[in-house]
């Protein structure tokens, strides 16, 4: 087994809270997000998610719990053969919902993130910022209880970063707990929010 990436971390993410997760590159931000998303199990220690110990959740139950979490991957992970609209609607589609039941919601969200004119476009044609926004919209579409975003403003200019931040704040006001992993200090300075700083596997929290 390799060296420990994270150790002695104790923290909680309260409901409806908003926090930044920051630290230098390689500090373990992405690993921590993966632990929170239940795509990794801790080698020791305990992580409780929605009142369950994630190490003991049986595999078939994971999709149901993941439906309560929205995640924005650093590399977007949009499906190249689906349009912006179809990519954003994907979480609802895999839940077996009928297209007519969510079409208006998806179109509204796309307008809200500024992609109202790009609904029928494939990801290959979208700019980095547009892909970023489509990935964020996909994470938000089912009103998750927790939103995890890995460097969500990494590919956009400062005005767009500001717009995306407002989007996360708006979502937070509607009741979603938000964790944004970033090392963009300028972005963090724009909001009075809890900061979780990871350094060499340790975590310091500034309320």
């Amino acid at each position: 087994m390799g060296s420990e990436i994270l150790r002695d971390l104790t923290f909680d993410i309260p409901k409806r809270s908003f926090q930044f997760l920051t630290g230098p590159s390689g500090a373990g931000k992405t690993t921590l997000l993966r632990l929170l998303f239940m795509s990794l199990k801790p080698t020791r220690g305990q992580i409780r998610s929605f009142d369950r110990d994630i190490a003991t959740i049986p595999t078939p139950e994971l999709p149901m719990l993941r439906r309560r979490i929205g995640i924005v991957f650093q590399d977007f992970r949009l499906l190249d053969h689906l349009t912006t609209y179809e990519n954003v609607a994907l979480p609802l589609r895999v839940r077996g919902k009928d297209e007519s039941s969510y079409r208006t919601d998806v179109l509204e969200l796309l307008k809200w993130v500024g992609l109202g004119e790009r609904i029928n476009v494939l990801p290959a044609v979208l700019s980095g910022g547009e892909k970023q926004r489509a990935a964020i919209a996909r994470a938000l579409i089912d009103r998750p209880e927790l939103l995890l975003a890995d460097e969500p403003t990494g590919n956009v200019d400062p005005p767009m970063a500001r717009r995306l931040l407002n989007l996360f704040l708006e979502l937070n006001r509607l009741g979603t707990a938000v964790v944004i992993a970033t090392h963009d200090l300028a972005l963090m300075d724009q909001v009075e929010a809890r900061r979780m700083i990871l350094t060499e596997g340790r975590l310091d929290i500034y309320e």
Partner: protein
Amino acid sequence: MSDRDAGHEAGTRRPEMRVRPTGPIVPPTNIQSNALAVVIAIMAFLACLTLGGVSMVRATAASWQSQISREITIQIKPDDNLDMNAALSKARELALSFVGTRTGQIMDEDATARLLEPWLGPDLDIKELPVPRLVVITIDEQNPPDFDAMRSILKENIPQATLDDHRTWVDRLVSMAQTTVMIGLSIMGLVFGAMILTVVFATRGALSGNRHIVEVLHFVGAEASFVGKEFQKHFLKISLKGSAAGSFAAAMVFAGLSYWQSRSLATPENDQAAALFGTFSVGYGGYLGIFATMLIIALLTTVTARLTVMRTIHEIDQIRSDPARTDILPD
């Protein structure tokens, strides 16, 4: 309002964006899936061709056996003290007195001369030569007569007569036919084995390019069974397309050969082909076998696709409990 005004009016309002009809979650065509369809078509063609070939060889071998064992021959050697015609009639009478015999035919002098013509030429006068004469008796294959009893009675009454029940020939033919069928079945086994492996590996190859789709679906909350079903549907379509094309082509080959054979009856080419392969018709059983092969291939691809997708999901989940295996995780 004039047309121009109407156009202007329409131009001032931005039309509502229309969503295109929702596309399938698994991309409908790409290079891998086209290549898979071609591989499946080729393997289906070869498998069906072998299947039809083996069924043809079996039918031909079975007909050889039954034709040759349907007859026995009584041969009477000439002798100075023997009235050949009386002996022939007597032999036929004796043979037909046994249960299990059907008809008896004495080979007359002309027929005997024709039999010897390839060796002795057309101008043969059979009376000048001490040529043995034959009586051909057809027998009931299901209920053959007692050959030993017939042999001894013939010997008692006509010492110059010998009975040939073709046992040696039949035995040789049976073993040859069995060997031919065994070789055919072995080749069919090999072709089917190769087909299964090729289809399984080609399906897995085509799926490897779709790993990111499985991953994204899994992470946006799709259950494993949902992802499995989507891929299963996709691969069933590809394999049905491929195996239907291959099987149809094989069926056409047999139908074409059978047609050619029926059109060219009694030509030297056809006689030669018929002697080698028998008739090209594979019958309803053969076409049913071709259809079954097509379904087996389609099922095989679909099941492989499902198992591969399930294993991919299992691997993604496996990383949860083995953090050392982050090699396939995205950054």
